[in-house]
Structures are given as C-alpha cells and as structure tokens.
C-alpha cells in the first residue's frame, strides 16, 4: 500500500497538470474581446483541412503529345485511296461526234442523221441573221472578253443584251451570266444564307441542288410537282413558328423539269406563296422562248403578272441557241447580285458574240411569234405518234418540248434500265439514223426520278422526221424489250 499511494498521487498530479495545461491558456484566452473555447480551435483546424482538400486539383493522367518519331511512323503507314476508282467493265465510253451544226439534220460519225438530241427548240441554229450579227461581233471584239465584269469586262453588247431581255420580259432590269448552269448555282447562295428556309422540288436538276447545298440554308424537299405536298410542307414550316417572320423563305421550282418534262403549276404556287409569305425562285431554262403566247415563259403561259415572281433565272443554251444565262427580277434583286453573286463577280464575262447572238435571237422571237405554234404542233404530233410505243410511255407534259419516254415497267434495277435504254438509243442511231439520247445521271446527283429517253423537239423538224423517229423507235423497242414483257 505504500507504493500505491505515491503512484496515485503522481498520476493525479500529472492529470491535474495536463488538464490545467489544456484549460489554462484557453480559459484565459480573450482575443479581440471574444472568448475562445477549446473546441473552436479543433473545429477551425478541421475546416482548414477540408478547404485545403477541396482546392486541390483532381488527378488527371498527364497528356503526352505524339513525338516526332510517332508522327513519322503514322505518316509512313498511311495509305491513301487512289484518286479515281477503276473504270467499270463494259462502261460505255464513246460519245457520238458531230461533224456539222447541231440542227434538225446533222452529220454524226460520217452519217447524216435526224437530230433529236439538241435543245434547239426555235430552230435558231444556222439562222442567217444570228450568224451575221455574230460575225460582226467577232470582227469587232474578238472572241473572249478577257476580264470579269468589274474590271473592264463589261462590253456595251452585254449592257444592250441585259436591257433587251428586261424589256422583253417586262421586268426593270436583268443581269447576264457567262454560263448556263452557273446562273442558278450563283443566284441561290447570293440570296439564301445560313438560317434561311428553302422549300424545293425533289426533281430539280444538279445545278439547283448544288446551289442549295452551297447556300447552307435549311432545305426541305417536297414531292415532285405535287401541290398538295407543297402546301402541307409550307404549312408545317410556318405554323406556330414565330421566328419564321424574320428569316427569309424561298420556294425553288423549275418551270419545265429537265429530269421529267413536267411543268410546274405556277398559278397554284403563286397563290401558296402569297398565303405563306415565301419568295419564289423560278428556273426557266427550258421554258423561256417556248411557253406563253409570245414566248415570254411560264408567267405568260399561266397569265400571272411577272412582278409576282421574285427571281427568274434561265440559261440561254436552249431556245436562244447561244450560251450563258440571265437572271431578272426587281431592281433590288438584280443590283444585289452585281456584288454578291460569285459566278458574276469572280468569273470572266460572257464572250461578246454570244451576247449579240442572244439579242438577235430575242429580236427574232419578237418578230416571228408564229414559230411557237409550229413548235406546239410538232410536239402534239410526236405525242400522237409515240403513244403506242411498245414498252415505253410518255411521261412528260403535253406542252413540254422535252418529251420524256420511260419504261412502262421497270426491271427493278436502275443500271439494267439504263442499259436497256442505251441499247435502244444506240440501235436507233445505227440502224435508222435517228439520233436520240437517254438522260444521264452523275453519281453526285441526288434526284431519284426515273431515267428515260429524252427527245428534244424543234420547230425545224418536219413531219417526215417525226414519223421516221416513231417508226424506228417502235421497231427497236419492240425487239429490245420483248424479252422483258
């Protein structure tokens, strides 16, 4: 018991000292007039530790960029595809070569043939007056214009041609382009920018599709030449869409579709456009100089005042038998293109002799409006004669100068269809000296309409030409397509 007591005493003393040490400074701590208890120090330390952990960055494995040696290896390993795919076996390569002007009768590969492959609707190829005006231009101006329109490439014949076309159509002004297909794919991106809405027919040709793609706008396609589909698309796009008021909206249609020969019902389109507040871009390459009482195009044909159509474009390589294109509309529309249309600003202007050919062609059309009724009777005659062709049926409009024949019953695969049609065209040329062509498709073209044989009717075709064609076509198609029916 003697030893226990000092130990107890010692323990008690130590305990007392420790608690005094704990309590003493803290009990007496008065910092800035505030009492501080012991637990506050511990809590403060804990908060400091938590804050420290939160501010540490999370662990990420370090990024290692590729070393030069690795990049070298990757570059050595990489194998590019060949620049062009190998040619398919049996693909038809040769195109028929003309040896004289592409009028209703021409010489192909040494033989004289009846020509249904040139869009020479008014028969102006070989017209004396036009050739004379071209010769005058060639002697005065040479061939090319050697510059874009902004840099001394504007020749007075260009300005005359623009004024003449505008006067002929009844619009305030027009603008000339130097190539037919570049017209539409420069006009569309000049007016339609990212964020705009475009409603287009699904059967438009490649140049229009390219223009729509380059414009980066939202494009919605409606069923080919189907007004009910157009109406429902317009309704869907504008219903409940408050933003639709502030963005530009366009409808893009062709007057006569190259891919099918249908004619767009313009009066219906104008009615819809006014109801839903869209602007119309009309591509008139194949109807300018063909439709309407005096050849002024689709608007005259339907009796729609020309001011209601906002933008009209056309290539002059068809009825007017020259090259290039034009666009017409209000003054604002035309002026805007002179600085923001890339095919106009960044390209050399139309050769002057082609512009004077265009002026002479329009003059001819104004002086001889009777050619239009002759053209219409030729088309009607062709329709009548070809109505009972075995295996083929006419699917174009009765007034369209592009007569489109497609297979009554498709074989199921587009390549076989194309093969059959091309065989028919070849045999008609070889055996009966009638030159016809099928519609061609590039693999960049997204139009899904059926292909067929396209006949371009001209005013220069005589009745005997048309009967020769129908006889030959009936005979050849009967023999080629007999295996399939």
């Amino acid at each position, binding site marked *: 018991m003697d030893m226990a007591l000092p130990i107890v005493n010692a323990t008690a003393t130590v305990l007392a000292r420790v608690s005094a040490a704990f309590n003493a400074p803290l009990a007496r701590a008065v910092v800035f007039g505030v009492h501080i208890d012991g637990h506050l120090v511990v809590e403060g330390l804990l908060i400091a530790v938590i804050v420290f952990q939160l501010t540490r960055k999370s662990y990420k494995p370090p990024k290692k960029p590729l070393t030069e040696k690795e990049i070298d290896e990757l570059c050595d390993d990489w194998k590019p595809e060949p620049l062009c795919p190998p040619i398919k076996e049996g693909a038809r390569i040769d195109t028929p070569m*003309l040896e004289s002007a592409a009028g209703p009768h021409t010489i192909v590969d040494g033989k004289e043939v009846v020509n249904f492959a040139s869009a020479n609707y008014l028969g102006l*190829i070989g017209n004396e007056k036009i050739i004379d005006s071209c010769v005058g231009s060639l*002697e005065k101006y040479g061939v090319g214009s050697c510059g874009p329109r902004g840099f*001394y490439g504007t020749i007075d014949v260009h300005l005359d041609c623009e004024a003449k076309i505008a006067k002929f159509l009844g619009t305030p002004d027009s603008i000339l382009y130097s190539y037919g297909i570049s017209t539409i794919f420069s006009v569309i991106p000049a007016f339609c920018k990212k964020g705009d809405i475009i409603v287009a027919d699904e059967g438009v040709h490649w140049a229009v599709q390219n223009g729509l793609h380059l414009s980066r706008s939202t494009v919605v396609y409606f069923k080919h030449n189907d007004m009910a589909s157009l109406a429902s698309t317009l309704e869907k796009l504008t219903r409940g869409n408050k933003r639709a008021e502030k963005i530009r909206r366009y409808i893009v249609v062709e007057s006569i579709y190259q891919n099918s020969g249908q004619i767009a019902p313009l009066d219906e389109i104008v009615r819809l456009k006014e109801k839903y507040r869209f602007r119309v871009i009309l591509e008139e390459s194949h109807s300018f100089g063909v439709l309407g009482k005096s050849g002024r195009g689709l608007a005259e044909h339907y009796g729609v005042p020309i001011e209601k159509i906002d933008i009209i474009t056309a290539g002059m390589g068809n009825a007017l038998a020259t090259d290039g294109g034009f666009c017409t509309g209000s003054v604002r529309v035309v002026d805007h293109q002179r600085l923001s249309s890339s095919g106009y600003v960044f390209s050399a202007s139309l050769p002057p002799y082609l512009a004077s050919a265009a002026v002479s062609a329009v003059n001819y059309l104004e002086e001889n409006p009777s050619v239009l009724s002759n053209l219409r009777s030729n088309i009607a005659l062709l329709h009548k004669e070809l109505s009972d062709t075995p295996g083929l049926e006419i699917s174009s409009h009765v007034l369209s100068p592009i007569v489109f024949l497609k297979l009554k019953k498709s074989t199921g695969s587009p390549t076989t269809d194309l093969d059959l049609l091309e065989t028919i065209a070849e045999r008609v040329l070889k055996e009966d000296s009638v030159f016809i062509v099928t519609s061609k498709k*590039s693999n960049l073209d997204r139009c899904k309409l059926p292909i067929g044989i396209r006949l371009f009717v001209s005013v220069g075709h005589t009745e005997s030409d048309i009967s020769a064609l129908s006889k030959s076509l009936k005979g050849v198609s009967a023999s080629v397509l007999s295996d399939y029916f």
Partner: protein
Amino acid sequence: MVRLPYTTALTTLFSYGLLFAFGQLRDFFRKFVDWFKAKNVKGYAPICLGLEDFYVRRLYLRIQDCFGRPIASAPDSWFDVVERISNDNNKTLQRTSHTTRCLNLGSYNYLGFAAADEYCTPRAIESLKKYSASTCSVRVDGGTTKLHAELEELVARFVGKPAAILFGMGYVTNSAIIPCLIGKGGLIISDSLNHNSIVNGARGSGATVRVFQHNSPAHLEEVLREQIAGGQPRTHRPWKKIIVIVEGIYSMEGELCKLPEIIAVCKKYKAYTYLDEAHSIGAVGQSGRGVCELLGVDPADVDIMMGTFTKSFGSCGGYIAASKDIIQHLKHTCPAHLYATSMSPPAVQQVISAIKVILGEDGSNRGAQKLARIRENSNFFRSELKKMGFEVLGDNDSPVMPIMLYNPAKIPAFSRECLRQKVAVVTVAFPATPLLLARARICISASHTKEDLVTALDVISRVGDLVGIKYFPAEPPKIAEVGHNKLE
C-alpha cells in the same frame, strides 16, 4: 509578302473608321426617313438585313464609278472606255455615248489574242458558219463536235499530260471537278489565298478543308503531318485521301507558287496535288507551257492540272489535264460534263488557233515573239516601277503586278486621275483583298509596245506623286539597278 508600315496602317484604319462612322450616321437618319414612308412588303424579311450590305451601301457606292467601266471596243492594248454620268451622287450610273481612247492596263490579255487576230479570227468565223454559235446540247448528248475532240488532244499535248477534258467556263471547272475527286472523309488543304471557285468547289465536295499559309511549304508540311497523324476530326479514322490545291500565279499578289518544294512535300506524304494555272498557262515559261516549265517541274509529278482559256488564249472556258483514268472517270461523273451546255464551237476554234500560234505550228514565229515580248515587258515595267519608289508585289517574269495603295481614299483618286490621263487601271479593295491592303493591279500584255509602257510609266509616276503612294524611296536615276531573279 506585304509589309505594312505602322504609320500607314494607322492612317488607313483612321480613314476606314471615319467612313464607318459617317455610314452609321447616314443609316441612322435613313431609318427616320424610312419610318415615314412605310413599304408595303409586310411579312417578308428584307433581302439584306441590317449590316449585311453596309459595306456596299456606304463605302462601295461612293467609288462605284471606278469599277465595272463599260468598254465599246475589243479589250486590246488601246480601247474605248465609255463615259458614265451620275445624277444621284453615284448611286446609279448612266451610260453616255461618249468614249475615251485609253491605254489598257487592266484586261487579262497576256499574249495579245484579245482583239481580232490575223490567224485566229478568220478560222473562228469559219467554224461559226459551220457549227453555229452553240450546240444547244450537253457534251455527252449531242454536244461533242470534232473541234472539241481536237482541242482536248491539243491541250493534253501542250500541257504535257496524257489526256484532257474541256468545260465551257473556268469557274465551273473548279466548282464541279473537286466534288468528283474527293468527298466526305477526305481532306483538302488549300493555300490561304486561293480563288473563290476553288473555295466553292471545296465546300461543295463535303470534304474537310484546311488552309496553309500562303506559299509556305514548311507550314504545308506541318499541317500535313498534324492531319495525317490526327486523322479525321472526332473519330480519328485515317483520311481517305488528301488533295493539296495551289495556284500557278496568284492573281492578287502576282507571285509565283513555290511549286518544286510543294511537290516534294506532297510526294513525301503521299498527298495528291492540284494545280490551278488560270493566270500562268500560256503566259510564263520558255514556250508558254506555264509554271511547270518555268520552275523546272515535270508535269507528271502534278496529279491534276487545271487552267482556263480566258486569259492567255483570248477565248472562254477551262480544262483539266490528268492521266487517262482520271479523265475517263471525270467524263462519267462530272456534272459539268453531263449537264452543262458544251463549249461554243467558235471559242473552241479560237483556242486551237491560239495554241497553234504559240507552238509555232501555224508556220510563223509569232508565238515565240509574243512570249519573248511579254517577258521583256513585264520585267521592264516591274523594274521601272520599283525604281520610282512604288511598292510593287510579285515575282519577276509574272505579268501581274499589284501596286499597293492601302488608304481607301487613294483608290478612287488613283483610278480617276489615271483615267483622266487616258490610262485605264484596275483598283481592287475589300472583299477581294484584305481590308487594309487595297491595291491597283496592272496586267501587262504582249501587245503593249515600248512606247505604250513608257507612256504608262510616265502617267503612273505623275499620278503616284499626286496621290502619294511612293512608299519606298525612289532610286536616284544615275545608279543602274541590277535586276536579280527572285526564283531559285
């Protein structure tokens, strides 16, 4: 490259700022005036919203008479410029019947084929009478005539490639070919100053586009390494193919492309090369065969060579020359071949005759004379301009020489004063060039005689003094300059 001195940059920015401020002020007042005259196109969004056409309305229209000047004769070395007057402060311009005979320093007439030529024009007229102005048909239907086939062979022979294909317009050539060669999953690397047609073609193809610094093979190599190692964006799959697009002569700089180095880089990394020779075919090179001949590059090393007939051959249209397989593939797929009206026969005949003259196959040596003359003219003109103290861009032997103006007020001053003294020049501003780097561009032709050039130099020197564009110190007339070739 252009070195922009600081003081000039400051004054140019100040000028543009002032023009911008005035433009905004006028727009502000216009808003008030228009509010009273409400237009009746309710419900339709305007064709140009707000600031989209600010540049056109407030800056371009002030100097509109310097651009788009109509002419009343052939664009030869001397031509008639039609005078225009404006009744509403340059907003619209009307033609008068008055013309001025001026010296032409603006048209792309490098070899002088622009006007009626003694060999070419009779043949063009003959072909017009035989084939008429147009074939009204696409190439694959009934639009190929004997002339087209002959020209394709001739072009292929001239350029040094196995085969060629023709198109009716140079712009369409680029925009329609590039999508046929490359699509989604491919990479296009193009020079930063490439022409708008190449940009359009690249965008239309759907491939990824990357840009490398103008004329810098080192940066091209960097971009190639980075792209091949990285692969397609986001998926990092390897690229299907890579095409590098460069031009022979850049039309706004007058510079030649550094072709041998770029070809070496492309061969090392297995990229395909596409050379656009719009301005250089027929104008440079010992026998007019373009940049390849001038810089000693074998045409077989360039995969695709493109060119136009507008500049040196005095016609219209474009071509692509490449291997037989590629041309065959293009004939089957290119939309411009399948859907576009074929080139006009007289234009085709003009090119055939022009190439025959250049090659000397017409029986005279006019072609060699023209080529020698354009080289002498360009070098003489460029060295004289530099001696006078102008800042001239471009390499020796290139017939395009831009003279820097910088300040927006100097553009109309230079242009109008030169026209008053009967010299027609081309001035270029935004958006064809960067905003601060406006310039006047001179195109020399083989049909300019020595007297024409001396007259032009005289006028330009006087106008340059008046306008104040001699940014470099003029050389004293006693010291003769040793003209050294900038090319390796």
